[in-house]
């Protein structure tokens, strides 16, 4: 294996590992459930994407062909990560999970529980302090 190829693969792997670690630290340290939904998506797409691109380059160097198996995994994760986050957020809204005070549009949670769409009267009513800033 040439030195350049090893360098590229190692840097891609380490970058992916760093993203996964940061995502897991975010999952542990963020305050609210709805905020915590943000963290693992970065770990999933960026972290695993980098590791998978690194393994693609590695397989091309050792086996001689481009294996699209890793590309399939990345595509699958990119497609299904928003679906998972949507369903978990919906389940949390139905169970009335405690919301941070800074969250906007909290009045729409009750409407979503009744499965009613928001009307034009429910304009964006965030808290007034952040609107002044």
């Amino acid at each position: 294996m040439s030195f350049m190829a090893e360098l590229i693969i190692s840097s891609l792997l380490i970058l992916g590992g760093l993203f996964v670690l940061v995502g897991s630290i975010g999952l542990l340290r963020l305050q609210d459930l709805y905020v915590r939904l943000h963290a693992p998506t970065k770990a999933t797409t960026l972290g695993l994407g980098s590791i998978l691109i690194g393994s693609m380059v590695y397989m091309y160097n050792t086996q001689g062909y481009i294996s699209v198996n890793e590309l399939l995994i990345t595509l699958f994760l990119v497609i299904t990560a928003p679906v998972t986050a949507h369903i978990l957020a919906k389940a949390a809204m139905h169970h009335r999970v405690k919301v941070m005070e800074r969250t906007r549009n909290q009045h729409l949670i009750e409407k979503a529980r009744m499965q009613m769409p928001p009307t034009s009267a429910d304009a964006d009513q965030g808290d007034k302090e952040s609107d002044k800033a």
Partner: protein
Amino acid sequence: MLDIAVIVVASMLSLALVLNLWRLIIGPHVVDRILALDTMYINSIALILLYGIYNKTPLYFEAALLIAMLGFVSSVAFGKYLLRGDIIE
């Protein structure tokens, strides 16, 4: 150099797995625990891929694809059960 990099990344991923386990234990609500479980699935996919690179075989990528699908389906099934009380109505 590649062996050292693989060992470093494997230790980072193991630390991430332990942090997810901590969130699984202390999560005050069920949805926290489902999120932690889903993230543990993703981290174990990465760990399996690293093991395949370490052993220089392309054999483990099918296992990684399987675990990705299983993780997604199990998370959606948990969420559906929380929403409706039933997985398939």
